[in-house]
């Protein structure tokens, strides 16, 4: 069977099926699969990305449980693998996480550090293939079809080299899923985390899926799952017993997609210009609040985070959105269109402040969020100045200077006074 050693990157065209160690270096990280060198759609997912960046930047955290997330009322954004062993999961409320893991080191997310690491990883992905579709800061699809002649190596080898380079050069580990379409590649990358490399071949696709839960399908959440269960569908095998028309009749447009996915068919292409629909950030308060000054401080920090991410990904937005969640969990959103797209924190902040002003004093609130939507490339943003606000041009120059200082001396090197409120 074709095989590959992830440590020494030696390729074996045929290795006995029972081989467990690399005949070349003796390492145990051997992958063998009949279709290993024939598959070219991959999904790369960093392992506990935020927590790994924190551990890399502060080696004293290496053997401690680390949770990245906000405040006591916030939720876990990422937990490192040590914390995960104790049962901590992403999106878990922080108080619950701390109950499971009281000795955890909790770190507030440092958006710009993650964005910087993401940019470095992105550069490595771009070197592999022009068809990179980032899903977030820490995961992306890659279509490596036709790159073998260019790299003089099959996709599997280049992917193994990629994760090895991420570890040695950036100090960050990732897991690879390799298959023949996006749906299966994404499932595969999750099979063997962390530092995983999983392959789902064409021949085994149907058998592999048969007993898996339909929950694996992207877009099948609790509600759809319940609807499927009412129809007696739990696993892919259940799903496969339905014919295409019956599924379409019962589940509408998505039904046909289910029929395809039940057979491991996914025709979506890896789209390199895939843009997010929005870029947003929010914060949940330790205690419900209606304190205008405090909320405005949050608005500034959130605007800065949104701006950091927009700048990191080369994007901008035409619409600024403000989100407020009341103490009774009622959600309010307000949006305003800007006259030109922006990625600048100052512009986002001023628009968000304008949206917040009429709502001030109507709280208390448990959450506040800021976002950009109607996303466009940065090249179309911030092209012109405002006749009526000559100060804006100066503030934007100051922001660019601030960005340059932070890039050199770190994110805390220079901050605005209102960021301290």
């Amino acid at each position, binding site marked *: 069977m074709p095989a590959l050693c992830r440590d020494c990157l030696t390729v074996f065209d045929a290795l006995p099926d029972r081989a467990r160690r690399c005949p070349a270096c003796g390492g145990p990280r051997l992958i063998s699969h009949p279709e290993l060198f024939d598959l070219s759609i991959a999904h790369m997912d960093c392992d506990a990305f935020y927590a790994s960046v924190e551990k890399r930047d502060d080696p004293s955290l290496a053997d401690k449980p680390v949770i990245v997330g906000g405040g006591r009322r916030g939720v876990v954004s990422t937990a490192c693998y040590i914390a995960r062993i104790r049962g901590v999961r992403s999106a878990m409320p922080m108080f619950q996480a701390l109950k499971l893991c009281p000795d955890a080191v909790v770190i507030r997310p440092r958006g710009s550090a993650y964005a910087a690491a993401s940019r470095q990883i992105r550069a490595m992905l771009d070197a592999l293939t022009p068809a990179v579709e980032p899903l977030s800061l820490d995961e992306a699809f890659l279509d490596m079809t036709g790159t073998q002649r260019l790299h003089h190596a099959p996709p599997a080898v280049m992917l193994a080299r990629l994760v090895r380079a991420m570890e040695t050069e950036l100090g960050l580990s990732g897991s690879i899923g390799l298959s023949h379409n996006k749906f299966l590649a994404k499932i595969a990358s999750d099979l063997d985390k962390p530092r995983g490399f999983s392959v789902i071949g064409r021949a085994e696709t149907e058998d592999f899926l048969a007993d898996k839960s339909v929950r694996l399908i992207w877009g099948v959440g609790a509600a759809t799952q319940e609807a499927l269960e009412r129809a007696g569908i739990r696993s892919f095998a259940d799903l496969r017993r339905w014919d295409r028309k019956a599924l379409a009749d019962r589940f509408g447009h998505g039904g046909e997609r289910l029929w395809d996915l039940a057979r491991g068919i996914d025709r979506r292409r890896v789209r390199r210009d895939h843009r997010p629909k929005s870029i947003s950030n929010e914060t949940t308060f330790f205690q419900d609040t209606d304190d205008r000054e405090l909320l405005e401080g949050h608005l500034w920090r959130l605007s800065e985070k949104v701006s950091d991410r927009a700048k990191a990904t080369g994007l901008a937005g035409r619409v600024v959105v403000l989100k407020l969640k009341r103490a009774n969990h009622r959600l309010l959103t307000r949006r*305003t*269109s800007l*006259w*030109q797209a922006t990625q600048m924190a100052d512009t986002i902040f001023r*628009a968000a402040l*304008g*949206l917040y002003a009429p709502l001030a004093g109507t709280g208390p609130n448990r959450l506040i969020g800021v976002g950009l939507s109607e996303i*466009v490339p940065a*090249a*179309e943003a*911030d*092209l*012109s*100045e*405002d*006749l*009526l*606000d000559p100060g804006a041009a100066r503030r934007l120059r100051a922001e660019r200077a601030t960005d340059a200082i932070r890039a050199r001396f770190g994110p805390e090197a220079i901050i605005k006074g209102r960021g301290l409120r």
Partner: protein
Amino acid sequence: MKISIERGTLLKAVAQAQSVVERRNTIPILANVLIEAEGDAVSFRATDLDIEVVDKAPAVVERSGATTVSAVTLHEIVRKLPDGALVRLADDGTSGRLVVEAGRSTFTLATLPREDFPVMATTDYSSNFSAPAPVLRRLFDKSKFAISTEETRYYLNGVYMHVSQGDSGMVLRCVATDGHRLARIDADLPPGAETMPGVIVPRKTVNELRKLLEDDKTEIAVSVSETKVRFATPEITLTSKVIDGTFPDYARVIPIGNTRKLEVDASEFARAVDRVATVSSERSRAVKLALENDRLVLSVNAPDSGAAEEELLVAYDDERLEIGFNAKYLLEIASQVDRENAVFLFNSSGDPTLMREGGDTSAIYVVMPMRV
């Protein structure tokens, strides 16, 4: 109420009323037009609570009275009636129905009581004057394109009409800006307007007003107070609240030291801008102007879709200049020029540019460049 009225007269009156009515209404009565018949005339009144229009038309009134019906439905009916038809409107005051009859067609419309119809409170106008329709038409037509739609800067959502010092004496001035371009249009100050307070006339009012200004011979009676403005012809009275806000100090935005002068045939220029902008699919299409020795090269470079270039012979003898603008903004200001050449005055590629028609300073435009 029982009246007969000629279809054409009725259509004109109802059309004006129904355009004020908001299409999506949460208050039912605001979707209606108030019809009042008295003497030898009938009036149609509609409002969105910010603007009120009253249109008076001659009619044969058999029985005076008043009622309200859906403005849109009445307009649609009258529109579909044959030209020259005589239309009869009648209600008995008790059934809550208005009967519309013309030829062999009969319509019965639901009414709402006239007492429910909100009539705009009267105001003491501090200034009353009269201006010929063409004067007001020029003031508003040449400025309204620059009105902002930005909700956060609501005080820019209209035309600032005020009295100011012009180049040769006091003028009636209209200014509109959205922060990217600005239009400042002057007219001779009509007698009686000297004491007029400056008011921001909302966009919708400007659009409604436009319909009163079609006929060159009409004199428009203008009344202004701190909170309201009224424009009236013998038939139509348009009353509007003004925007409650402070218009920014626009004078400091208008560049005075721009010396690099370009003179170009405005329509030739506009057509060239329009042509080169075709290749860009971006919403804010940027056009680059490169100027040197009586030569203007317009170009657009859109990495995703293509590039375009066009050369124009112009009058320009200053040093070489490259400057970018939003194509739409350039087109809009160039299309304001109708008699002479467009004169652009530049400073640098980052500073506001001024445009006027020939040597005429009674209409000037400012546009902010963009990075290209």
